[in-house]
């Protein structure tokens, strides 16, 4: 049992894992993950795929909101740009997915740059409202630029092909999604060991003081938007390949709110929190659906009631977490872990 930390150099301080045990556990976990598609049903694979996509999106949003403190309600717009850009590049320009997705993500990042410009002048609430407006403007553009996006009629996306094998089932696309999710988590973790990451955190905590200290607000705020939208672009591209048909309806304001709920419930400014939040918010409607279906079997007339339960449960979950555990599931996890490792002492 470890007691306390014992670091003797800056290098060791920056290490992600102190001992080999977490690394082994992580490798085993990833191995188990790779075996999942052989045993799970399409339904659960679909859920896991959506979780994977949500993790990437949540990480992106957390970088912007949780780590840099820039409130953005426009995340759904970024996802939309990433998704449609990927689809258009593949269908109209004939690019294969391994070029289309990164290119689309870069496009989304450029879009994020434009989005981010208001953040240089606006703070807090006004920034939030500006991102809200930007969301509507983007959605309008997507719906009405029909020659490119096919608007409300839906844009069909052909499956990605790897060496001629089409990734057209949840089991196959699982590998693609998690091949991107795992590195995304690692990259984010490393981001916050670098100068850039520290600058972000400084801006969140006290931006005026940070700029006095020499952190260029101009540069790093925009960078935060750019990086965050890159993640969203990747997530959007994966969404395009997972659902295979894109509708503007898939990117409503509620999606942006769902992502915000993910990082708040999961834990703002925490990578583990993004993962927890993504899992929680994706599973919540599924659990409710299961309840509804099993109850409907017994009380068919109750179906209507359960449908509205989703809104209520979502709202209550958000309120509950914000009131009792503002730092989210990540904090609860840390507490449970330390309870376990430090028992019988409490700290």
């Amino acid at each position, binding site marked *: 049992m470890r007691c306390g930390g014992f670091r003797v150099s800056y290098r060791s301080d920056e290490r992600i894992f102190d001992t080999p045990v977490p690394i082994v556990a992580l490798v085993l976990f990833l191995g188990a993950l790779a075996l999942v598609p052989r045993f799970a049903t399409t339904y659960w694979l679909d859920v896991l795929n959506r979780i994977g996509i949500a993790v990437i999106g949540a990480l992106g949003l957390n970088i912007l*909101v949780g780590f840099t403190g820039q*409130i953005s309600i426009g995340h759904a717009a970024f996802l939309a740009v990433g998704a449609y850009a990927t689809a258009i590049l593949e269908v109209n320009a004939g690019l294969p997915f391994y070029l289309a997705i990164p290119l689309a993500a870069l496009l989304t990042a450029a879009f994020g740059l434009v989005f981010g410009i*208001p953040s240089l*002048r*606006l*703070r*807090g*609430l*006004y920034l*939030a*409202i*500006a991102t*809200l*407006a*930007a969301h*509507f*403007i983007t959605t*309008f553009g997507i*719906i*009405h630029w*029909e020659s490119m996006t096919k608007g409300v009629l839906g844009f069909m996306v052909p499956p990605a092909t790897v060496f001629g094998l089409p990734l057209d089932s949840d089991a196959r696309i699982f590998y693609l999604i998690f091949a991107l999710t795992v590195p995304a988590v690692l990259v984010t973790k490393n981001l916050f060991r670098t100068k850039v990451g520290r600058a972000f955190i400084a801006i969140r905590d*006290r931006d*005026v*003081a940070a700029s*006095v200290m020499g952190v260029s607000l101009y540069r790093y705020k925009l960078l935060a938007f750019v990086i965050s939208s890159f993640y969203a672009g990747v997530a959007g591209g994966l969404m395009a390949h997972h659902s295979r048909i894109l509708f503007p309806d898939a990117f409503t*304001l509620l999606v942006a*709110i769902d992502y*915000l*709920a993910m990082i*708040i419930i999961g834990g*703002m400014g925490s990578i583990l929190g993004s993962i927890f939040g993504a899992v929680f918010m994706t599973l919540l409607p599924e659990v409710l659906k299961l309840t509804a279906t099993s109850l409907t079997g017994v009380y068919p007339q109750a179906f*209507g*009631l359960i*449908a*509205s*339960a*989703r*809104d*209520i*449960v*979502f*709202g*209550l*979950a*958000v*309120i509950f977490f*914000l*009131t009792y555990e*503002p730092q989210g599931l990540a904090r609860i996890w840390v507490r449970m872990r330390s309870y376990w490792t430090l028992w019988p002492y409490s700290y």
Partner: protein
Amino acid sequence: MTEQLVFMLQLVISGIAVGGVYSLMALGFVLIYKASSVVNFGPGELVLFGAYVAWATILQMRLPLVLALPLTLGVAILLGLVIERGVLRPLIGEPLISVIMVTFGFASVIRGFLNMTWGSDTRPFPVLFSQEPFRVGPVPVSPVHLWSFVGVMLLLGAFSLFFRFSLTGMAMRATADNQQVAQSLGVSVKWIFALSWCIATCVSTLAGIILGSVRGGVDFSLAELGLKVFPVVILGGLDSVAGAIIGGVLIGVLENLSGGYLDPLLGGGVKEVAPFVVLVVILMLRPYGFFGKVEIVRV
């Protein structure tokens, strides 16, 4: 008058009429912000709540108007208290993002609750105003819009006086400015918060009644209108009552003009997005809105 001019006038006047309703909704938002610096991201749901309760008392329970109206307002007050006590009180001092999300949260709860209790069909709204339009020049205006405009102006007058001259009003402004100082001077901050939420819910309820009458029915789409509040309050200033009125009317006119002139060019939908474009432009030029107060940030 030339046909073009008549067309434009029609758009402008009906824009003013619709704008009156926006002002009413924005008023609810501004009141909360003015007194407690809380941003309500669910104004639509409050309006929806008011509309449904009004419908329930008038049509479902069949109470006469004289009883129904105070009952509706009473329920609105209750909601205001519940929100303030249960939801916002624990979040005093928490960062802005938490407060914003919490308002989304209870908006969701209200929506789910309404769906569960009254279902989601469109309920025909009781006819409280006559249907016959009367004319302002060449333009027909429905009486509902006129009443809402009149109502909004009355409320503007009432609230301006309230905030300026009454003790409670001044206490509210003091609380919004600096809670600790206000408290040290004897203002009961808790009571001020509760009061501001109750007033806001009542105003939202009135907005809901007006909207229900305009549309002829209550259903969940009323909540979507709520987001239009933001262009209005950015234009008018987050804490300015007069600004809410002016902003509402301007946005209503702007919407109609862009709808009338730009929709045929761009294929529809411009009407809904134009206020948000304006919002972004204003924020870039004047980050605190036209009438908002500038915040000074210290390290």
